[in-house]
């Protein structure tokens, strides 16, 4: 291999394990089917608490090492008590986390040492949609802007390629940019 590959890079990502999983799962595609789960309980007013613990994949049930909870609410300007992030901010959080994890993993694969990565996200929204004032205005974001500041042992073009590839492989980027069927039922 080339000199590039001999450089010791550590972004804390176990790329060998990921590549091994890719190899194994391409031979056993059934095991690649995952199911992600969340449970949300209403607390009071617009305040709710979502928890995640169990998930399914590799043909069996799994659980996170501990249960993670997220308080969701609306801010005071919406006459709420602001006990947590808004749900739309959590969508931005998911997108940011997914793209950032992708940047780290791809950098590791490409032997690029990261020193710092910061993503700044903005989701523009006209709340005439959710308030039902104007039916031509959608409920969701008009658009999402993501800005990355990355300090790494790489050229500007290599950094841009990292960010582009991260979007290409991102689950949340796919979820927010493409339609998804959502089925809601009541027990």
């Amino acid at each position, binding site marked *: 291999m080339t000199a590039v590959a001999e450089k010791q890079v550590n972004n804390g990502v176990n790329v060998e394990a990921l590549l091994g999983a890719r190899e194994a799962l391409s031979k056993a595609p059934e095991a690649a089917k995952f199911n992600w789960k969340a449970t949300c309980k209403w607390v009071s007013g617009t305040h709710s608490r979502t928890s995640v613990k169990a998930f399914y994949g590799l043909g069996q049930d799994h659980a996170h090492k501990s249960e993670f909870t997220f308080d969701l609410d609306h801010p005071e300007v919406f006459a709420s008590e602001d006990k947590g992030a808004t749900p739309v901010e959590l969508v931005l959080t998911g997108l940011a986390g997914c793209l950032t994890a992708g940047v780290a993993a791809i950098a590791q694969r490409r032997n690029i040492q990261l020193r710092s990565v910061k993503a700044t996200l903005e989701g523009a929204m006209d709340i005439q949609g959710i308030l039902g004032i104007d039916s031509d205005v959608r409920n969701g974001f008009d658009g999402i802007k993501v800005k990355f500041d990355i300090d790494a042992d790489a050229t500007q073009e290599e950094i841009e*390629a990292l960010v582009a*590839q991260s979007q290409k492989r991102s689950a949340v980027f796919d979820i927010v940019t493409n339609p998804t069927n959502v089925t809601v039922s009541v027990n």
Partner: protein
Amino acid sequence: MRTDVLVIGAGHAGLAMSRCLAERSIDHVILERGEVANSWKTERWDSLRLLTPNWQSRLPGYGYAGDDPHGYRTMPETVAFLERYAQAIAAPVRTRTAVTSVRRTQEGYAVQTTQGAWRSRAVVLASGACNLPNIPSLAAALPAGVASLTAHQYRNPRQLAQGGVLVVGASATGVQLAEEIQGSGRQVTLAVGEHIRMPRRYRGRDIQWWMDAAGILDLRYDEIDDLSRARDVPSLQLTGNAHGRTLDLNALAAIGVRLAARLAGLRDGTALFSGSLANQAALSDLKMNRLLEAVDAWAAAQGLDGEVPPPERFEPTRIEAGPPISLDLARSGIRTVLWATGFRPDHSWLDVPVFDRKGRIRHDGGVVDAPGLYLMGLPFLRRRKSALIDGAGDDARELRAHLAAHLDGKAAALLPSAPLAQRAGIDLLMRSTMSGGMKLTSSVVSASTSST
């Protein structure tokens, strides 16, 4: 009827194999469902020209002898070229003989055709890479009143209703059809997914000249790290029309084509597009620039820098701030959807258990997972140029070696290993690019002459 080898398909790949077999006096017959060069003759749109220049259509023992080496052949010229080749090599072609089944037997294969039954010891599948158009399943939701057409059915804009046209797909096919249809006075919206932008000419030469000379087209299937991806990459955005002009998204936008992202769904008569257009364009620009860097490095290493114009970099793909994410087909006047979403081979008549779970033939560089069965002419079969007319010769020679050994009863026939890097500079560069950065190997797929 009996022969040692049956070659299925009398296109460039089957003819090249025929010539290579004849060189070793291996008894064979070519079975052709129509006439020589049938797909070129019957499954291409009227204005199409090859995406490779005339000089590059080299077949074993045959090449371009005309006075326009840098031109691009029309389809009738391509057909005539292959007909002349078939004559020159006295190819044993049985025309109008469609294969209906291929089965294993004790000593080889039994091949049923519309003109009788054949037996052979080996079979070469050379029936083309583009027999069937891929149409995404979402096409089923297309509303009544909007015509649906595949790139195989398209001949010229006069077939289309007056009104808007949604062209889905921006590989070589999609961009060429978008340009032609927009030129006919119909408003085109182009749905752009993964695509590969490429200048037609670079530093005074055709881009194919650079890729050929620098050895990029010779990169072998056993030298790259993500072969299945390389085999799936869309064709380069190139055209053989327009006298060396580049046909990229900027050129299409300049003539009024509206750009949208990948078609992600059809609901209640509304087309839904992905929000990923900016990233698709960014990925494509990065891949193109990566290739141009490789070309520049090779040119410098060869001492060409004084001889050819200096390196160029092209303006990034311009994407408007908020490209459309939905389009009401009726309200926006779209009367036709044209699917330029790729092609796949048709091996439905092959009754041999060699298919993977996605219906593709399992093979190692064209040596199929069944003794005496060979495959030709698919993208990156043995090297990047495998689907080009120009790629048939090298693949045919190597597969013939394996096939001849099989006929001689040598169990473990060996294919020649990767040739020593005669163009060490570019090979090293390509490998470091692969390990360090963009996946150049998979991004610069051969501009398949047949991926039209």
